[in-house]
């Protein structure tokens, strides 16, 4: 991590990019914290896989993408949806299982999607969405468009066939795909050193003849700069690449309180939290006089208001009608 402002690559970026990265991360953080509270309060059904801690990855990558660039996401997908520009009202409404939700209450937390902003869905099957991104890239390339596709997945997903088949296919067909691995160190509850012998997921890229890079996933600027380069490369027709972002999730695999299984130490959690991506960026921005603390605080308070309104919208929204249960099983 860069600490001296003199050398900070952040300073080469226009301030707007930094405001944008900061805002995207704050929106994710608050969306998730509030979702956690709602779950704790028993106001939401189902599972909740919180993205808190990993914000720099979604924010950094999405800030390099256009609206027509397609992303696919995971069971831990709220961060990607928020960062891609999803409407928080429809997201909460989906978490509540309401008719106004992104999936009309048919999908839930693990399936938020919005094709109009290039969000080709979160996916409940580990690795399941990766081939869809390759297909989106194929469609774009077939139609002569210069959009790219970015599948997000975790370290655990790089052990599943869908990842390997997709990586090889994208490479062989030379498709504009940036594979983004969010390595948070755990496949559910199993630490990385017990689920693969490699230290770096990025090394897997070599098997498919594509570049693999590692970036600090707690540094939004670093993620942004790496993604900017690799996305441009894919857009220029130079084929796919794999970007591994080393990051950490603050909450448990699922839920807020966790199962009280001591698979991580408090010390480990605290060490990562000391490097919190949002706090770190704020310090850098203030130190570099790109923003004042007051300006940054306003982003938090504005977002809190937006989120309160979104939750109110979701809460007041109607439930789906059981008479429409079969809607969209088939296209008719």
């Amino acid at each position, binding site marked *: 991590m860069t600490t001296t402002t003199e050398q900070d690559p952040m300073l080469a970026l226009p301030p707007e990019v930094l405001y944008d990265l900061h805002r995207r991360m704050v929106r994710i953080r608050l969306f998730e914290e509030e979702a956690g509270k709602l779950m704790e309060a028993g106001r939401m059904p189902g599972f909740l896989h919180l993205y808190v801690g990993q914000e720099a990855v979604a924010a950094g990558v999405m800030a390099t993408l256009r609206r027509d660039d*397609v992303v*696919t996401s995971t069971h831990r997908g709220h961060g990607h949806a928020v960062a891609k520009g999803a409407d928080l009202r429809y997201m909460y409404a989906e978490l509540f299982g309401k008719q106004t*939700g*992104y*999936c*009309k*209450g*048919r*999908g839930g937390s693990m*399936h938020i*999607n*919005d*094709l109009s902003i290039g969000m*080709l*869905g979160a*996916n*409940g*099957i580990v690795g*399941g969405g*990766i*081939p*869809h*991104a*390759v*297909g*989106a*890239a*194929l*469609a*774009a390339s*077939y*139609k002569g468009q210069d959009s790219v*596709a970015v599948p997000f997945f975790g370290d655990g997903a790089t052990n599943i*066939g*869908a990842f390997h*088949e*997709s990586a*090889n*296919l994208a490479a*062989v*067909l030379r498709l504009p795909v940036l594979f983004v691995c969010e390595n948070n160190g755990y496949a559910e509850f199993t630490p990385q050193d017990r689920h693969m012998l490699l230290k770096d997921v990025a090394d897997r890229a070599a098997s498919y003849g594509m570049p693999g890079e590692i970036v600090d996933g707690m540094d939004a600027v670093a993620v942004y700069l790496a993604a900017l380069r690799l996305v441009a490369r894919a857009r220029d027709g130079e084929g796919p690449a794999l970007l591994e972002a080393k990051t950490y999730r603050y909450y448990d695999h699922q839920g807020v309180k966790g199962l009280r299984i001591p698979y991580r130490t408090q010390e480990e959690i605290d060490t990562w939290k000391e490097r919190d991506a949002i706090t770190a960026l704020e310090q850098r921005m203030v130190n570099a006089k790109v923003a004042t603390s007051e300006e940054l605080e306003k982003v938090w308070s504005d977002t809190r208001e937006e989120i309160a309104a979104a939750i109110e919208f979701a809460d007041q929204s109607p439930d789906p009608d059981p008479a429409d249960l079969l*809607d*969209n*099983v*088939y*296209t008719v």
Partner: protein
Amino acid sequence: MREITYVKAFTESLMQLMAEDENIVIIGEDVAHYGGVFHAFDGLWKTYGEKRVIDTPISEMGFIGMGVGAAARGLRPVCDLMFFDFIGVALDQLYNQAAKLKYMFGGDVTVPLTLTTAGGAGLSAGPQHSQSLEAWLAHVPGLKVALPSSPHDVKGLMVAAVRDDNPTVVVLNKRMLGTKGPVPEELYEIPFGQANTVRPGRDVTVIAVGRMVTEAVTAATELAKSGIEAEVIDVRTVQPLDSRTILESVRRTNRALVVHEAVTFGGIGAEISSQIQEEAFDYLDAPVLRLGAPFSPVPFSPVLERAYIPDSNRISDWVRRLLERSGG
């Protein structure tokens, strides 16, 4: 009408469909340069080029999943799974992804994907290249599944499948690839969910799936010599299933036999039989019978395989049994 083979009817449907709709692409192993292991894709690559006929690595999950993503973004992919038996390595992309995206994304996404594959026994292809697994797929909401029983139906069902905005699966029968029959030269659709009464009859309804239609017709011709008139219904698609045609027939004949190549236990015959007893119980003069394969993998030895697959002789025997049991 001119006659062409079952496999040529398949190729012709794609050749004409691709001329009609430039969003159709073909994706699969050896489908381009080689033309497919059954030559089902012969000439397509030469006509439409590498951009539209795409050879892939041996990665069924990957390329079917790629088809799902491409379909969601406006293409109309036809993905080819060389043998139906290989579905296991790719199934997630079919039943959890293609079948569910529309529903679980609130209708925001459509997946006009067609999966073509070759199933069925009778070529000594052994336990992993001979299966009939249509009941698995028919069980999944969101999928549509066809098993064409003639060259004419191959073309008509392929046209309907590829033009459909839902994920569809067309299961060719390997043993019928060289079978010739009349096929119109122009494009025509056979709608999914519309069974075909291949042969009318008054004494018994034989509901057949895929290649068993041919065997059932042979059996019916033989039975007619003894004065038994069997009505033969080709279901054409197992999802959706044309229950109306089946029930209407059984209410007239009062007896029903379901025949398929798949193992009897849990096969589509169980569903059909159950629907008949639920909806037409009072019309039945005998229990509904099911004739399928025994509960075993498909054997390799020609002797064993012949014993395994239902044929016209067995169908005739079962029809006679059905009539003997009849009270009315």
